[in-house]
């Protein structure tokens, strides 16, 4: 172990209060210092440190050849990252906002996701595309999209989203180490949420969901920006006498069937919550695959609490769009608790 690594290990072992943005910054810094093939680039990520300051100080520490600003062109950011990865580097690039990633869509879906398959594994693309996503920050149009379903629908991509600062650190480190391309969705309204935690590279596993809170009556499935909302809702429900189990998916693709199915088979009821529009959304896949695997354990249909099927609303109206604690509690109420026939059937 080198001096620096030792110092980092000691520092990392001590719980500290850290925001998600700082945890992500730390993950990038640690990856850059431990693997010289790691690169960070994108729009304003160098001198400025990113519009959310996630890359703050990295260019100064690691130099302009490893952390640098690019011209303003997202397709080329992803496309050149592909060429760099073909030549042995591990780029972790930033799309400045969710909707600004769309110009890169062809590169992501037709090449990033498929080159490994197209070359029968000869070409690996260990690329991370960091995308700040979702609303709740008073952003204007094109700055608040929840675009996860576009990516989860594409085979060959991994899609990951952290709900807490310590997960943000661990998942980003693992995403950078991962041989597959990873779409790393950062819930921007949680950038400044704090957690007192030990930042540990191995504290969580990139493709496994986690039970954030144990419960017996309902499984509440959340990810990214809605994890904190789900935890609040679970606490509020406790006061109503309902025991809610909260699952933070972390990996949207691949989906951790094992953890979620085990929970739902225990509780018999589930609600999935996300900011993205409901129609054709990620929650539909969650509800469908859980119904297929847990049908005989279900006491009620799996419900979705999602954004409306509208373009993301302006800042003054976004509170009506985002899934709230109340809306989640309302969903709990609609889980057919009064249906005694199932109870009778179970008791016989």
């Amino acid at each position: 172990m080198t001096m620096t690594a030792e110092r980092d290990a000691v520092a990392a072992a001590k719980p500290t209060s850290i925001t998600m943005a700082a945890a992500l910054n730390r993950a990038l810094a640690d990856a850059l210092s431990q693997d010289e093939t790691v690169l960070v680039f994108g729009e304003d990520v160098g001198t400025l440190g990113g519009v959310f300051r996630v890359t703050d100080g990295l260019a100064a520490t690691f130099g302009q050849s490893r952390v640098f600003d690019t011209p303003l062109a997202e397709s080329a950011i992803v496309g050149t990252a592909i060429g760099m990865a073909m030549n042995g580097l591990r780029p972790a690039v930033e799309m400045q906002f969710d909707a600004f990633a769309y110009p890169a869509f062809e590169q992501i879906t037709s090449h990033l996701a498929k080159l490994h398959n197209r070359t029968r594994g000869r070409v690996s693309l260990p690329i991370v595309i960091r995308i700040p996503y979702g609303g709740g920050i008073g952003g204007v149009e094109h700055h608040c999209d929840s675009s996860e379903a576009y990516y989860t629908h594409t085979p060959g991509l991994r899609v990951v989203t952290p709900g807490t600062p310590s997960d943000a650190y661990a998942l980003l480190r693992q995403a950078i180490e991962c041989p597959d391309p990873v779409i790393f969705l950062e819930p921007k309204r949680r950038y400044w949420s704090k957690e007192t935690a030990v930042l540990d590279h191995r504290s969580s596993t990139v493709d496994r969901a986690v039970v954030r809170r144990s419960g017996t009556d309902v499984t509440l499935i959340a990810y990214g920006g809605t994890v904190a909302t789900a935890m609040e809702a679970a606490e509020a429900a406790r006061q109503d006498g309902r025991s809610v189990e909260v699952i933070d998916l972390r990996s949207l693709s691949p989906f951790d069937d094992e953890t979620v199915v085990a929970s739902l088979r225990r509780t018999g009821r589930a609600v999935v919550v996300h900011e993205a529009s409901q129609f054709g959304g990620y929650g539909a896949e969650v509800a469908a695959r859980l119904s297929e695997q847990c049908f005989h354990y279900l006491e009620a249909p799996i419900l979705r609490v999602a954004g409306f099927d509208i373009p993301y609303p302006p800042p003054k109206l976004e509170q009506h769009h985002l899934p709230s604690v109340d809306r989640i509690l309302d969903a709990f109420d609609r889980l057919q608790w009064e249906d005694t026939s199932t109870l009778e059937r179970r008791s016989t």
Partner: protein
Amino acid sequence: MTFLAPVGNDAGAGGGGESDRFLPSEIPMALLDPAGRVLPSSELAMPPADVLLELYRQMVLGRRFDSQATALTKQGRLAVYPSARGQEACEIGAVLALRPQDWLFPTYRDSMAIVARGVDPVEALTLLRGDWHCGYDPYVHNVAPQCTPLATNTVHAVGLAHAARIKGEDTVALVMLGDGGTSEGDTHEALNFAAVWKAPVVFLIQNNGYAISVPLSKQTAAPSLAHKGIGYGVRSVKIDGNDPAAVYATVDAAIRSAAAGDGPVLIEAITYRIEAHTNADDASRYRDPAEVQAWLARDPVSRLRAHLTERGLLDDDAVAAIESAAEDRAGELRRRMNVDSELDPADLFRYVYAAQTPALARQARELAEEIDRAEEQR
């Protein structure tokens, strides 16, 4: 070489002097006229005799490969084949100028170039045969996988070349595109990134006059495709793309210059697609046969043969020997392509991720069971 004087990009916007802002020659630069006679050129250096002979040999092999591939589509052995007949000077001239460590980023029309680079012809035709993968290992001959989206490979080439610079490796990426591809956004982003990064990339535009059916006049209002590079601060030249000596000399100079750290180069090579877009296309719907005849008179293969014969570097026996070798290779390709390829459906699930996910393992199992049931019922 004067035509590749470096562009100064530290003095504010754009290039330094007046000469940096325009093409070195508005007339396509050439070394040989259509009859194979030497043209005076102050810009290009005539390649040595051994290079010219190898250009000729490879063009003959390439043309025969191309016509064999077209024939294989008619026999149902290839799903589709986009011919590059008439473009041999670009296909071969560019590839022969590459050094072993350099990379080729081809389009779907560049099978001839891929084979000239050393890729096994059957592997090169894998995708067009209708398989799900590109056939060859890109790292064996430094040839990026073929695929059908256009111009998306330009940014890959820039990334690979820039990575080489970061790693301190002497590698140049040559990316091929056509006149149609210059309208795609990725081409512009790639030119811009390459110029800003001074990435060692050579953009070779084979301007063959048509993007399937759409003629150049409907593709661009620019004075030339080479002018598109000028706006990005990329040194750009226009050459006669049916002159193999000029293509080789220009690509060779561009690679040396890019490797020396002088930044990217764009080459517009004026050429012509003699065949239809693919075997599935009907070119008579959009172009006059007289136009094709006029371009046949500018044929790159007979042009170089005339030149070499005139110089006494090639005689009838040598021509016959090369043609016989081309025939042998075509026969070999025919024989190998007439064997049905074995496709394993399980492979479709094998390379989606580095390690197969549980969900994909399950789906692969389900498909295998379905196939087994179907076979039992037969």
